[in-house]
């Protein structure tokens, strides 16, 4: 059918993770470690992992590069990103509009989830606030 967006189907896709673990050593790794315990960790033949642990030494450029890499890889279906880390590359996250991989912002141990910063919810809020302003003018 003309104009119908094609969704690539996959029988075995990966979950990628970009999680923040700021703070001292005892507080590090928890989110990524937990999900690795659940079996989502993948290391390919080039010894590249499907996760990035963000610490105090990780630059914004490195986070951006990891985000771009995970969102362009064909074998990744969902990218989990701590909302705190997503705020560092907010422009990149908000401008992403492909259905796959899906970008999910998750809370981290030190930074609880804030709906006001979620990229989808803020888009919805902007739409409805613009609509209420427009209807007010009418």
């Amino acid at each position: 059918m003309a104009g119908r967006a094609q969704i690539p189907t996959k029988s075995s896709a990966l979950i990628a993770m970009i999680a923040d673990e700021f703070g001292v050593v005892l507080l590090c790794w928890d989110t990524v470690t937990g999900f690795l315990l659940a079996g989502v960790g993948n290391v390919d033949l080039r010894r590249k992992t499907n996760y990035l642990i963000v610490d105090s030494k990780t630059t914004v450029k490195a986070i951006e590069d990891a985000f771009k890499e995970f969102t362009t890889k064909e074998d990744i279906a969902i990218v989990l990103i701590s909302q705190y880390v997503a705020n560092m590359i907010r422009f990149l996250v908000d401008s992403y509009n492909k259905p796959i991989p899906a970008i999910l912002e998750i809370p981290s141990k030190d930074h609880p989830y804030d709906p006001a910063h979620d990229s989808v919810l803020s888009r919805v809020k902007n739409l409805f606030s613009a609509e209420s302003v427009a209807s007010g003018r009418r």
Partner: protein
Amino acid sequence: MMEDQEEKGNAENGIGRQKQVKDEYLLQFLDSLDGYLTLLDSLSSTLSQGWLELASARHAMGASRINGALLDLKVHAAATSLKVSEQDVDSMESQPCFTLCKWASSDNGERSSGEEKSLSPQLRHRNNSQLSGIISSPVSFSHFFNFFLSCEEEKVSTRTGTPLILVDQQQRQKSLSVFGVLVSPKLRSAQLSFERALETLVEIANLHTTMLSMFEQVHKELENTNG
């Protein structure tokens, strides 16, 4: 005059149907939005529990036994993966549907689904014959533990009558073995908590795509109304 009234009636019916469609899109969007926020709240609770259990395990086992240096950097495939299928929303649009495949076995070089598989009678028979062998031999503690877990899995599914989910206990144990042979029960609990978090995340992902799809529809309708 009769024709004018008929035309007016048809126009009113058309407007009514349009309004009904718009309301339907809006309701579906709001419904998915509500589900999304509820699931995120549930995810936060599950993750909090997982973090607490991980911290308890670290306290019990020591920080040297649970740290990032132990993460497995050898080449290995993910034991838990996703299946992406296409779901038709309408004739012009489709959206992805995610299904979690937990602990898919990769022993034969092929990945099996690991989800919604029923235990065959052959497997049940094998479990019964193994039972007497393990009790008589005092050696394999871990084998007995794995066997016990798989028996419990079978019991639960038989009792509920729901489709059985085949969980690869060896993969789960392998994931834990990164932190040593004997691990704290809290670490096992943390593993289960994060597994539950993964299930919630897949539900969130599906609602996320539905929400985005409905949002686009509502946005289009609003633009048409304003235009």
